[in-house]
Structure formats: C-alpha cells, structure tokens
C-alpha cells in the first residue's frame, strides 16, 4: 500500500481545491485557486484540466500509480458525470459533460459527483461519518448543499439528483431562491443568509469571525443574529430528522477553512 493515488478536485462557486490523495486517504498535497466561475465553461474546463495535469505530473514524478481523477462540483450532476443543472454561481456550467471532457483532456479515468456528495464520501471514509450507517451531511456556504448516506452508500435517486436539501421549502412565500422557488432553506441557513441577517439586524461585525468574537463579548445584537441563524438551521434539520431518521447529521462549511497553498500563480492566486 502507498504507491497508488488519485487526484481529487472540489469545484465550488468561489474556490477550487485540488489534491493528490494516497489510497489510504492521506492527502499528500493540496492546493487551492479562485474558481474561474464567471469566465464561462471553456475557461473553467481549461483551469480544471491544467491543475489536474499539473498534479498528474507530480504523481508521476513521485512514482505513484494514478487511479484517475475524481471531481466534486457544485450543481446537479447526473449519473453519467454531466452537470445537468448548474447553480447560479457557475454560469454556463449547465450541460457540461464533465466526465467526458476531462477524460479526453487527461487520458485517465474520471468520475464526477456533486460537491456535497464528495464531502460526505470523505467524511464517511475518514471523518465524522466513519462509524455511522445512516447520516445526513449538510454544507453551509454560498448555498446549502446536502447528501444522504444510507447503509454507508450515498443515496442518489432516479437521476442522481437526490440530496438537494437546501431547496426544501421552509417558508411558503419566503425569500426568492436561485432555483426559482421561494422560501428555500438555503435562503435562511447559508452563510449568504447569515450575512444578510447581520445587515438587517445592524451588527457591527462584517465577517462571521467578527460576529462570533462579538458574541463572546456578550454583544446583544450579535446574540440575536446567532440565535435566529441557529433557529433557521434547526428548522431544516428537524424536517430532515423526520424524513430520514438518521443516526447523525454532519455539518460542514466554509467556516471550517484551513490554511491553504495556492495551486500555482498561473491559475490565479488566492
């Protein structure tokens, strides 16, 4: 063991993360770059291909056998590895045959999944879901992502689109959502929603970090924001508990960010 590896990539609306992962799950190298989100499909495909090729070269240098490249991307990914429907954060990504495109560019096997499913797979393998048979993963970021794990397998539904937990409706005529509905949970529980709440409640803090600092200092406005935000998150979780009867719910998100290495200056610096 130890001479086999795969490239893992996580394509978010704002950040792209990539790494070389050994077959025991150890991340040998990880880097990040701002996602070329608004430059359109070709630019983003080019960026993903260039970074993956770079990592492939590194794996070769290290004399590793490369099993292929796995990609988790925001959006609805079908069972053939096509991004059937993109989120509002990745314009032009809808309809991208990501698996096909990357296999022809990289000449290695490629598998594509939704980003929250990929995170759930990671947590199930080596993280907070290691011992759970049935769990729900939610990711709080620009939106709210979700993944359903049943009998230690990701539940995909008919077309692969299951787990869009952020689009459960929690308010009948609520805030407009990027999906076209109103009152989706992600309009209340995402980090975007938290920021909106901070503005409407008039807190001094401008980042989540500052907000939690104010909270520790007993600031009443900060307390009110955190209380309402926690309540918003809990409403959706209580629904999910009724539907799935899980043993645990794993919450991930951008506030858990670690220190990162930029991929390479030619891909854009962080």
């Amino acid at each position, binding site marked *: 063991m130890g001479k086999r*590896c*795969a*490239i*893992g*990539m*996580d394509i*978010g609306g704002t950040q792209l*993360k*990539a*790494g070389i*992962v050994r*077959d025991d*799950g150890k*991340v040998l190298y*990880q880097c990040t770059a701002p996602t070329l989100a608004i430059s359109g499909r070709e630019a983003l495909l080019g960026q993903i291909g260039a970074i993956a090729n770079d990592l492939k070269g590194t794996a070769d240098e290290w004399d590793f056998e490369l*099993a292929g*490249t*796995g990609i*988790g991307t925001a959006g609805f990914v079908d069972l053939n590895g096509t991004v059937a429907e993109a989120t509002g954060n990745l314009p032009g990504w809808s309809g991208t045959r990501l698996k096909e495109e990357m296999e022809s560019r990289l000449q290695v096997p490629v*598998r594509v*999944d939704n*980003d929250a*499913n*990929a*995170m*759930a*797979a*990671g*947590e*199930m*393998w*080596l*993280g*907070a879901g290691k011992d759970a048979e049935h769990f729900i*993963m939610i*990711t709080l970021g620009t939106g709210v992502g979700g993944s359903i794990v049943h009998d230690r*397998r990701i539940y*995909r539904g008919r077309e692969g689109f299951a787990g869009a937990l952020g689009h459960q409706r929690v308010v009948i005529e609520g805030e407009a959502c990027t999906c076209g509905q109103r009152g989706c949970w992600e309009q209340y529980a995402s980090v975007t929603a938290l920021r909106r709440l901070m503005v409407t409640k008039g807190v001094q803090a401008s980042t989540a970090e500052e907000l939690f600092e104010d909270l520790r200092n007993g600031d009443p406005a900060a307390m009110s924001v*955190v*209380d309402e935000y*926690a*309540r918003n*998150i*809990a*409403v959706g*979780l*209580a629904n999910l*508990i*009724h539907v799935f*009867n*899980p*043993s*645990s*719910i*794993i*919450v*991930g*998100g951008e506030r*858990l960010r*670690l220190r990162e290495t930029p991929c390479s200056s030619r891909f854009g610096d962080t």
Partner: protein
Amino acid sequence: MFEPIRGYVKKFSLSAYNRGAGVAIRKAVLGNAAGVIGAAKLLLDPQK
C-alpha cells in the same frame, strides 16, 4: 454555533415525537480536504 442549533432541534422535535433525541449533530472534521478526499475516493474505492 452548534449548541444553539442542538437546542433548537431539541425544542422543535420535542413536540414531534421527540425524534431529534439521539441524533448526533456534529461538525465535519476534514474541513477543506473533505471534498478532495471524497472525490479521490471515487477512484480509489469505486462504489456507486
């Protein structure tokens, strides 16, 4: 952040058969690497 969330989940589910009892609400532990590790796992340990 997790304590108030747990508190509200408990509160909401008390009046609904107390289904929230016994559900662990926990923080993801792999942070930023979770998606990268999970995506790589699609190749290292392929399952549907």
